[in-house]
């Protein structure tokens, strides 16, 4: 009789804990998560915060939060595994009654991109795994990792000049309408340039300092096709990632110098299938950040071969200078670049690969190659 009683009590206890867990596990359980910032740059260290609140008088022995994110967000190395492009993170919690746990993960942004975490699945069960329950909690968070910048002077090598060229923006005469600041009067400037307020403040004669301007504008063209023949996806992605960083650096330079910059690429956004990218040229920090955001979203999906794409856009180019970032050169492309030069548009080529064909390319078109070893 006692044996039966013991058996019944054990079974009852096991059933009861299972029932309580099954019935009330997700009651008054709140989960929230967010990144410390909505926008970061490649290589940045940010944080990812999870807040789990068990607001009921029933402890949860364990709760597993399953997070699916990109493998390019490096965190939870010992508590995650990577399958293809996805990082599966398992975040284990144990919650007493009325307990809130805030977990702050240290995240390193390895590569540019737009990363979403739509749902986080919470899993919990009773002591013996008889009743395992899971529930998706909407997260709806987005992190944009902008491409990092590179040191152009350090990495670019001209095929003509080993010192390399530097993009500068100077004209012979300064623009009397653009004032860069004030400087000391050196007795050569005309009297009408004296800045009286600054003179009063400094106690010595100061003159207005004017900046140099021109109607210069640049279009950066990025070819994400790494081989001459067409393939719907980029083959050497690391090479193009490097090209994207170069493009980002050019945008940054453009912003600093105030040069209007436009961008074009035969790549696409995932949500924008069947088209290519062509932005208008403009300057200003908003435009620059939009261009960087465009680069962050760029996918390695090629909708049009580069020769066809460039043929389409070359007629639309109105900028004074075109910088082409490409992995290869071929005769048909060289012809198109030559025709741009014939139209009075300066052309510069940044070649991501060291093997190239420039037999029919005009000598006036400078070609820069990226130093080996800098591409990773």
């Amino acid at each position, binding site marked *: 009789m006692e044996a039966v009683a013991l058996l019944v009590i*054990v079974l009852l206890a096991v059933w009861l804990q299972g029932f309580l867990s099954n019935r009330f596990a997700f009651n008054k359980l709140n989960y929230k998560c967010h990144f410390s910032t909505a926008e970061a740059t490649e290589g940045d260290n940010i944080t990812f915060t999870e807040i789990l*609140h068990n607001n009921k008088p029933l402890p949860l022995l364990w709760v597993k939060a399953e997070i699916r994110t990109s493998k390019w967000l490096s965190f*939870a190395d010992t508590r995650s595994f990577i399958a293809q492009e996805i990082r599966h993170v398992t975040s284990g919690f144990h919650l007493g009654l009325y307990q809130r746990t805030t977990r702050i993960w240290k995240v390193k942004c390895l590569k540019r991109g737009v990363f979403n975490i739509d749902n986080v699945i919470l899993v919990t069960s009773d002591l013996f795994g008889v009743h395992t329950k899971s529930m998706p909690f909407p997260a709806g968070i987005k992190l944009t990792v902008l491409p990092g910048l590179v040191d152009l002077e350090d990495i670019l090598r001209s095929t003509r000049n080993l010192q390399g060229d530097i993009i500068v923006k100077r004209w012979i005469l300064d623009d009397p309408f653009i004032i860069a600041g004030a400087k000391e009067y050196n007795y050569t400037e005309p009297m009408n340039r004296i800045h009286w307020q600054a003179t009063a403040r400094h106690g010595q004669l100061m003159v207005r300092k004017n900046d140099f301007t021109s109607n210069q504008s640049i279009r950066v063209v990025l070819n994400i096709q790494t081989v001459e023949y067409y393939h719907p996806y980029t083959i050497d992605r690391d090479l193009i990632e490097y090209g994207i960083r170069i493009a980002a650096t050019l945008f940054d330079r453009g912003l600093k110098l105030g040069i209007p910059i436009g961008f074009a690429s035969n790549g696409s956004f995932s949500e924008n299938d069947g088209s290519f990218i062509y932005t208008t040229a403009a300057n200003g920090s908003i435009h620059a950040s939009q261009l960087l955001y465009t680069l962050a979203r760029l996918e390695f999906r090629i909708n049009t071969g580069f020769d066809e794409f460039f043929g389409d856009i070359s007629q639309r180019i109105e900028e004074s200078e075109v910088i082409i970032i490409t992995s290869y050169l071929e005769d048909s492309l060289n012809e198109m670049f030559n025709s741009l030069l014939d139209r009075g548009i300066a052309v510069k080529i940044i070649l991501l690969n060291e093997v190239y064909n420039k037999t029919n390319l005009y000598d006036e078109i400078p070609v820069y190659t990226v130093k080996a070893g800098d591409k990773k």
Partner: protein
Amino acid sequence: MKDRNIGKLLNIASLLNKFLFLFPAFVAVKYYLYETTGGIGAILLQLFSMFLGLTLTTVICRKEYYFTTKLLSYSAVIIPILLSVLTFSQRGVIWTLIEMLASGTFYFIGVSAYTKSYGEIFDSQNLYVGSFLLILYLIIVSNFSVLLPLKNMVYIFILLFILISMLIKSEENIDQVFMLRGVEIPEVQKVIRKYNAKAIFSLFAGILILFNIRYIVSAVLKFIFILYLRITVLILYLMSLIYPEGSGQGNGAGKPDLPYGPESTNNFLDNIFKFISVVIILYLAYKIVPKVIKAIFKLVAHIKAWLFRVVKVRDDKYDDDECVDIVEFTKQVEVKKLGKKKKNSLYSALRKATSPAEKIRLMYAIIVNDVRLKGIKIADSDTTGQIAGKITDSWKYGEDIREITSIYDSVRYGEEIPQDSTVKFMEQGFKGFTDKMGK
């Protein structure tokens, strides 16, 4: 990667569980034949044989697990068998044979555990077989009077078996859950395992209490009865001091002559004394009982708070290379229970209130009480301004409290008789505040 130490501990626990359901069979045979269990020495020897099997295999097969090394491990069974012979040879041939058989069996169990995980050593099949065997032992020892002395031992083995089985199955469940698509990369945090083990021990304690509830209840009743007797004797003793020996009719045996004893014949004095005694006892009960009840409630609240501290995992900051954990306890349970009681009485008073000033004062009291329940610490000495400041500082919906406080101040300290519109305004503010508070 699993923590190696935890893995080893669980392996040992699994082996121990196998031991728990196999060992009583050998003991029962010995007891049937010799009316002795062999004592602790037999248990230790068989446990030693089992763990020797595991240890020797680990040492022999450390580098390669080939046929030859396996054969060598199994052949080493001779060691525990010899040890059994040396230890028990003087007890007779059959005894020695039983011990040899037991040593060999447990040694092989230890050897076979080498390549297995704890879940494989003690799998579901073992659980069913073990449960069946232990119940069978219990039935046998309960029904065969010869084996009846083994009943306690079997009970202890059963309870240990239940505890260890629950622990193993629970840990196995955690390991399975924290494996992702068959990839055992994520490590289960030690704290989760610890918390789980704590829960298992609590569940086991609950089972023990339920199983022994009859004995517990009878022990408690016995204790209460003894306490009652002691108190009665004490009261009688005190009364004997008030009413000393020889002052009454006395029984002549030197015992206190109690005024209300059967021997007492002085009815008038008896009745007066009885009356006074009853009055004193009733007065003492009136004074003491509420205090005793209050003390009991306080004790229960303390026990509850202690239990909450036990189930609370930790209330601190935990930092490792990958993440930082901040754990907070979001509700003060003791405060909540006491405050809830107060809240109910305040609401009932508010419903009954007819005067507008009283209504406003009660609404304010409910708000302050609710805020306390929310965990905001408000001292009795705090002014209304300080209370409003604390609420706005620590609660995002706290801005409404300023207006509510000014109305309350005007009624409470300005002795202003509020207009209907003011009461209405206060009611709206009160409703909005309490609604937000409930979120």
